């Protein structure tokens, strides 16, 4: 007689608590995995975006350095033509004319000027102003006169022979005998200097600092445009240890340091950001599908015994299942009717004690399968010593920690003797 109802109820009772907990855990794990994959993929793409922006910023640094380097090269070439010139008052007009001829090569700078070693005005490409007839006490001149060789940069509030603030670029020149004869220089107003060191296409919100190796304070600090902020993105990046800004540095001639700090994702449009998130979602979906495909398959037999409707078993076969504590929790198929009364009791206690019963006990303990093991089962209500013999197979059920198997009664069985305790 088949008693599936009794089997189902007892199985539910045995697995209810643990099964629900495991399922909840699995759902939580998958949810966390989806979030992790989404965040990981988005982070990967954003990291790549950031790296690309950093590389691009470094290119801008190289461009700025190249542009400034070209200007300094022109400055060096132009001022080099005054080396060996007699820096004397009688030569002023000729020097001024020469300066006027060469000054266009210094565009966008203007006002090429020359002072002798004592700081007295010699010539310039702008009219002499009374206050600028002697600059020997000016800080920029003192610094320039003290350094021979490469160009020197000095910020000033008042341009020599002009008005406005900016940077004086100057260098000493020698007389025909090679001795320092004077200081020749030009002037870059702040807007001119800004244009000179700002490559076109620099991301909005980038802050450029121009620092002289001769001074600690930046000579020039300004921000290009207005950054398009992504506050949430910035916070998220900070949270995962990524700084939302990037920087690049270039060393310019004469010890000038060009530094830019720019937002890493200022070029990221909302559409691009959505695309990144969408890619992350697709990646997460892919992982979920992969996990589903690779999910551990339940063994067919326990599935039949525990959840799915029991498959038809041969007429003489019946199914059995014990829990992790060895208690009989269910039977199915043509199980002997007296066995129903044994549900809840230790299955091993129903066996006649012999080597084969011991073998089953060890198999259960070691979770190894048994096949066609001939066992003597003393069914409830039957006199002790008159067991019925069954051919029993079984295997470990991972879900419950128990065992599941089938049994078939062996006909024409000889009574067996119970082993002594």
């Amino acid at each position, binding site marked *: 007689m088949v008693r599936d109802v009794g089997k189902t109820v007892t199985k539910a009772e045995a697995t209810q608590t643990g099964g629900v907990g495991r399922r909840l855990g699995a759902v939580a794990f998958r949810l966390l995995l989806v979030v992790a994959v989404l965040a990981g993929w988005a982070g990967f793409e954003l990291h790549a975006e950031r790296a690309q922006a950093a590389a691009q910023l470094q290119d801008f640094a190289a461009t700025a350095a190249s542009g400034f380097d070209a200007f300094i090269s022109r400055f060096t070439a132009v001022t080099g033509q005054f080396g060996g010139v007699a820096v004397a008052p009688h030569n*002023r007009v000729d020097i*001024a004319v020469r300066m006027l*001829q060469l000054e266009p090569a210094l565009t966008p700078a203007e006002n090429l000027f020359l002072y002798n070693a004592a700081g007295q005005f010699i010539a*310039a490409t702008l*009219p*002499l102003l*009374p206050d600028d007839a002697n600059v020997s006490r000016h800080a920029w001149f003192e610094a320039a006169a003290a350094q021979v060789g490469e160009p020197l940069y000095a910020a000033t509030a008042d341009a020599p*022979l002009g008005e406005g603030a900016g940077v004086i670029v100057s260098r000493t020149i020698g007389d025909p005998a090679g001795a320092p004869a004077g200081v020749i220089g030009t002037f870059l107003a702040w807007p001119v200097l800004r244009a000179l060191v700002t490559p076109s296409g620099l991301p909005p919100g980038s802050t450029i600092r121009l620092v002289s190796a001769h001074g600690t304070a930046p000579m020039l600090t300004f921000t290009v445009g207005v950054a398009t902020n992504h506050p949430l993105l910035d916070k998220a990046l900070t949270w995962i240890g990524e700084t939302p800004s990037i920087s690049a540095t270039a060393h310019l001639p004469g010890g000038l340091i060009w530094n830019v700090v720019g937002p890493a994702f200022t070029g990221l449009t909302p559409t691009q950001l959505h695309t990144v998130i969408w890619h992350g979602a697709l990646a997460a979906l892919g992982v979920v599908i992969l996990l589903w495909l690779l999910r551990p398959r339940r063994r067919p037999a326990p599935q039949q015994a525990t959840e799915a409707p029991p498959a038809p078993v041969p007429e003489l076969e019946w199914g059995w299942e014990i829990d992790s504590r060895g208690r009989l929790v269910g039977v199915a198929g043509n199980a002997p009717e007296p066995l129903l009364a044994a549900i809840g009791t230790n299955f091993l206690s129903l066996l006649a004690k012999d080597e084969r019963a011991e073998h089953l006990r060890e198999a259960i303990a070691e979770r190894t399968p048994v096949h066609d093991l001939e066992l003597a089962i003393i069914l409830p209500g039957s006199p002790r010593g008159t067991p019925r013999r069954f051919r029993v197979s079984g295997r470990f059920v991972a879900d419950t920690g128990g065992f599941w198997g089938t049994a078939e009664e062996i006909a024409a069985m000889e009574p067996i003797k119970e082993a002594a305790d």
Partner: protein
Amino acid sequence: MAGSAGCAALATGDAAAFGVTVHSDGTVDFALSATAGAAPPLLLGAPVPIQFHGPAGSWNLSGLVRTATTIHAAMPAGDQALGMVLTVLGGGALSAGDPTLGLPELNIPPAGTAGTTWFRCARDREHG
């Protein structure tokens, strides 16, 4: 130096005035005029040198008497002319001929920032 219109500049004193005009046709005119009665009449067409001395430089220029009170000189616009103009804008003393002519000397003060503005105009005109 006082007064400027476009790229013409004029410096005036009690007894004389000096004007510089940068033309877009590529010439620069220098004109030294004596105030009426301040000097004896000049011989028309006579060559009279113009001299300038200042903290920014010194130069000499060959001029011709155009009217009884005016000495005129012209030269092609270029860096040479601009260089001479630059020195004038820095201030100095302008004179013409030798003292026997009796022409007054004109002391030109530094043009200051107004002179700088004017010079940019002149330079742009000269290069344009």
